[in-house]
């Protein structure tokens, strides 16, 4: 029988927060080892150039410098990308050949071409300045459309063009759909380069000895995946490769999922020098190299019937992937998934999506929360808005007409959506906004020269990705895994293979396990991050914590109950099994006579400290590992967001007066943690959609390499975010829970853009490009007025 405690659903305070708030967090830069040296990079100052000479003599001669290597010194390690570290996606893929340091040619500003190892960071930076590099600049290509031109400069001359990846995704009969359409909406949408910028930058610390092999402390979302890729690349036995994500990591947002060239070098240098080698990326390097995502052009067409039914979609997507020299995702895995998720919550039967991913002389795209779909979500929810306007239809009505209505649903391109309720979510969003009255208020405001607007977006967000999808795509499993293990004192260690870094696993896993075992979250401690002590798992990515990992913990805890009941019955000298006991308040309690009870701590003690008291023949110990795999090809969270704005047309400035997020967490484990995920996701979405942009000048110099120039919003720049639960439990997880980390930012750009355009209806403005800076809005108003 299930336990009777109900920690699930309670907003208990996070176990993680005490140490984080008082400064007891344990981050990578806090780790110091004897004989440790530090590593830093000489990076290209040109966007594209031949390296004609590198003089390292002066740097190498500086006291305190241990070594200086250039590309030639690491060529023997081989090219970084293998079959294991390149996505195996349908379509045509080209694979760049490159080394941890660039050899002969650099392809973006920031490209690492030499590495210096020194005794301390001051000496290191002195030495980096002494490395003298001579360049012969080459023609550059920065614009993805230019990259497609036959005469465009080539990043990889042997390719014959700059196309990294191409994929055509057809479904149904789009030509017939467009022939039958009463209305065709056709628009070009552009989403700029923006993404994630975690508070803690990348970093690693590699230590080697020939006995144990290599240990790498690494800021990573995926210790196990990195481990096997590193072992493969470094050509060392898997048993000699250990990866540890430190206890705490200051965010990742996708940027710490790839395998990076710098990490490979730290390992190589630790082996070469027989000293621990540490690297902590500085903010400039971070802004130069990671977190650059989105960056797509969509030429999108919708075939619409006059009742608002969308019967077809065509989209030509062009993604600017940068130099494509980052392992695992290689710049194109994100746009691919974005294309697969393009139609998202809309039930559109006839589809023709053509995705082209090109390389340019910019940093490689890295994953950013909402993985690949931020741009497409903006494009589609904008196009739907344009269709509604053309048909004089309410934006909510057109969405409800086209939203997925029955679950499970398989989209035209094959995405499985298990559960959700769009009508219910829209109803809550509209009620919160007092939508009917808002339209009256809006008309009155227009008459008084004020511009108020409301905009909606809807989304189907990934809640983990199953093995069925991940194995063929990325050669890795999707299952969740957890080991639940009693200690001798009745406390429970849960070991997971993921590496949480803000998601709250220590709290939420403790809550679910406490319920399963009749304990308190205080009794549960969660460990993670070390490949030598946790089970193999794919990592903290794609909203798989609350969907997969936590479900594995539930199943593993449940699996202990028969043995616990047997031990309890034995101690009570009665005949009874699992169904005769309830586990509650720290006791195994006999249901038919509640006075008959055994402390769970006693059961654990017998299982571990005094196994002589176990039932005859029973194996000692009380632990179980479960691998959870959902019996479906896809679990999702279905959400509706709405923004209400006031625009000041003289300057294009605007205020997001309200932001309402109606979100589906299935069964929230800790509603406060869910709200935190949504707040963070909306904040990131607003930053990405409205303020942040990685800007390159005409020479390929990135102009936004400090946080003075790359504008991440603070609380002062953000509206109050109203979160409303509309939960539809997933039928495929033991508790009905769904992941909430990944998708939220993707909801934001269309909601805000639709609201701005709605407010400016009297001025006839059409928004097609991001970011939504006041200047862009002002220019659109100016252009609309000069047309009149």
């Amino acid at each position, binding site marked *: 029988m299930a336990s009777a405690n109900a920690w699930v659903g309670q907003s208990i305070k996070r176990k993680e927060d005490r140490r984080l708030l008082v400064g007891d967090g344990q981050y990578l830069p806090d780790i110091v080892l004897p004989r440790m040296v530090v590593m830093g990079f000489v990076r290209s100052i040109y966007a594209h150039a031949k390296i004609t000479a590198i003089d390292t003599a002066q740097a190498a001669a500086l006291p305190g410098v241990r070594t200086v290597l250039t590309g030639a010194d690491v060529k023997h390690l081989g090219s970084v990308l293998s079959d294991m570290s390149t996505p195996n996606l349908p379509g045509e893929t080209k694979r760049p050949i490159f080394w941890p340091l660039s050899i002969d040619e650099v392809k973006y500003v920031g490209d690492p071409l030499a590495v210096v190892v020194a005794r301390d960071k*001051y000496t290191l930076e*002195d030495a980096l300045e002494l490395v003298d590099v001579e360049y012969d600049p080459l023609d550059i290509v920065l614009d993805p459309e230019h990259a497609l031109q036959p005469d465009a400069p080539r990043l990889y001359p042997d390719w014959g063009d700059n196309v990294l990846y191409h994929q055509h995704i057809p479904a149904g009969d789009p030509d017939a759909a467009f022939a039958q359409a009463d209305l065709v909406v056709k628009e070009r949408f552009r989403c700029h380069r923006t993404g994630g910028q975690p508070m803690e930058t990348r970093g690693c610390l590699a230590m080697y000895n020939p006995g144990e092999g290599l240990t790498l402390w690494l800021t990573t979302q995926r210790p196990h995946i990195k481990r096997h890729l590193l072992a493969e690349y470094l050509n060392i036995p898997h048993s000699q490769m250990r990866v540890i994500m430190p206890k705490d990591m200051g965010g990742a947002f996708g940027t710490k999922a790839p395998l990076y060239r710098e990490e490979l070098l730290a390992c190589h240098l630790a082996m070469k020098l027989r000293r621990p080698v540490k690297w902590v990326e500085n903010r400039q390097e971070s802004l130069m190299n990671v977190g650059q995502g989105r960056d797509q052009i969509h030429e999108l067409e919708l075939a619409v019937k006059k009742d608002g039914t969308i019967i077809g979609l065509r989209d030509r997507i062009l993604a600017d992937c940068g130099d494509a020299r980052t392992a695992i995702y290689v710049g194109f895995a994100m746009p691919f998934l974005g294309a697969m998720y393009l139609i998202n919550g809309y039930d559109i039967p006839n589809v023709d999506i053509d995705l082209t991913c090109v390389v340019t002389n910019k940093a490689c795209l890295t994953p950013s929360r909402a993985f690949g779909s931020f741009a497409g979500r903006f494009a589609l929810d904008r196009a739907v808005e344009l269709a509604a306007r053309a048909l004089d239809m309410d934006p909510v009505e057109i969405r409800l007409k086209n939203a997925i209505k029955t679950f499970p649903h398989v989209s035209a391109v094959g995405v499985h959506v298990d559960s959700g309720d769009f009508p219910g979510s829209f109803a809550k969003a509209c009620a919160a906004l007092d939508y009917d009255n808002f339209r009256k208020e809006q008309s009155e405001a227009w008459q008084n020269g004020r511009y108020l607007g409301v905009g909606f977006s809807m989304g189907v967000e990934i809640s983990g990705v199953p093995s069925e999808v991940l194995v063929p795509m990325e050669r890795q499993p999707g299952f969740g895994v957890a080991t639940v293990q009693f200690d001798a004192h009745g406390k429970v260690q849960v070991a997971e293979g993921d590496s949480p870094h803000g998601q709250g696993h220590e709290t939420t896993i403790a809550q679910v396990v406490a319920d399963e075992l009749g304990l308190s979250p205080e009794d549960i401690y969660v460990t993670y991050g070390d490949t030598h002590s946790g089970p193999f798992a794919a990592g903290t990515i794609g909203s798989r914590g609350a969907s997969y990992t936590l479900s594995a913990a539930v199943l593993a805890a449940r699996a202990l109950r028969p043995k616990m009941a047997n031990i309890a019955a034995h101690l009570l000298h009665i005949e009874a099994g699992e169904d005769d006991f309830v586990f509650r308040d720290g006791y195994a309690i006999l249901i038919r006579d509640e006075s008959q009870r055994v402390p769970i701590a006693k059961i654990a003690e017998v299982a571990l400290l005094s196994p002589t008291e176990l039932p005859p023949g029973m194996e000692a110990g009380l632990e179980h590992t479960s691998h959870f795999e959902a019996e479906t090809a896809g679990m999702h969270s279905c959400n509706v967001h709405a923004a209400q704005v006031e625009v000041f047309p003289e*300057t294009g400035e605007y205020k997001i007066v309200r932001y309402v997020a109606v979100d589906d967490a299935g069964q929230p484990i800790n509603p406060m943690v869910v709200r935190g995920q949504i707040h963070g996701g909306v904040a990131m979405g607003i930053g990405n959609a409205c*303020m942040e942009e990685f800007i390159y000048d005409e020479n390929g110099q990135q102009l*936004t390499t400090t946080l003075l120039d790359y*504008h991440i919003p603070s609380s002062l720049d953000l509206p109050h975010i109203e979160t409303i639960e509309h939960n539809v439990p997933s039928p495929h997880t033991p508790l009905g829970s769904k992941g909430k980390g990944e998708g939220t930012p993707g909801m934001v750009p269309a909601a805000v853009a639709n609201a701005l355009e709605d407010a400016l209806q009297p001025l006839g403005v059409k928004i097609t490009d991001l970011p939504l800076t006041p200047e862009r809005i002002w220019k659109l108003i100016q252009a609309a007025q000069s047309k009149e």
Partner: protein
Amino acid sequence: MYPRAIENYFAPTDVAEVLTLLQQHGEQAKLLAGGQSLMPLMKLRLAEPQTIIDLNQVAALDDIREENGRLHIGALARHADVATHPLILQSYPLLADAARNIGDPQIRNRGTIAGSLVHADPSADYPPAVMALDGQLVVAKADGGTRTVALDDFLAGPLMSDIGEDELVTRIEIPVPAARSGGAYAKHSQVAGDFAIISVAAHITLDPSGICQQASIVVGGVMPKPGRAGQAAGLLQGKALDAPLLTQAGEAAAEEVETEDDVRASAAYRSQLIRVTVPEVVRQASTRAGE
């Protein structure tokens, strides 16, 4: 992001000592006050001083008081002090507005007014505000003398100011405003606490009947340094500040203050912000003047 090694670090306790050190090390020395510009520049190795003269132990350099018809603000007064000082809130709200707009709490707790003015960033908050108030800098010289220079003249261009290697700004002086004066400051920036795309400071004196006797309007966020909108201010003088006049002043300011494109905004957008913001700021200043 780690500075080059410095040869010398001094922490003098009085102005005379600072000046002696400047005389000895001036060419290679940098003065450290709040460090909000110097430290980032050193970490980026855009500044590589051999000698740091830390002013934070110098006594009595952070006083804020009125004396002989002038407000004295010590060179080391922190932005947070200026933003919250009762005397400044009461009589120089324009200055408090500007101070409150700078950076974030950490920056405001460390950054100093003289540091900001000497650094001379054309998009910083203080320069237009202090210019609108006709502020002057009192500069101590190594030879024992002092000179007083109007901020208008002191600011020479982007990150350039009229300060000698052997000189120290000891205080800022601002004339006590006439009766029925008021000022206001507003900034447009991409995120809160960022440098200005455009900022506008205005200081207005009204006569008892509400007619504008004196006006000054200064625009920040333009090159090479904050610009006075003299014609716009001239339009206001001797007139009642009604809405059409304010609109006219906005137009005039947008016309006379030259703007440039940069990564934050285009020249045209900057001009538009001037056009829109000047009337708003003047209106707020005149409201305060009437209070």
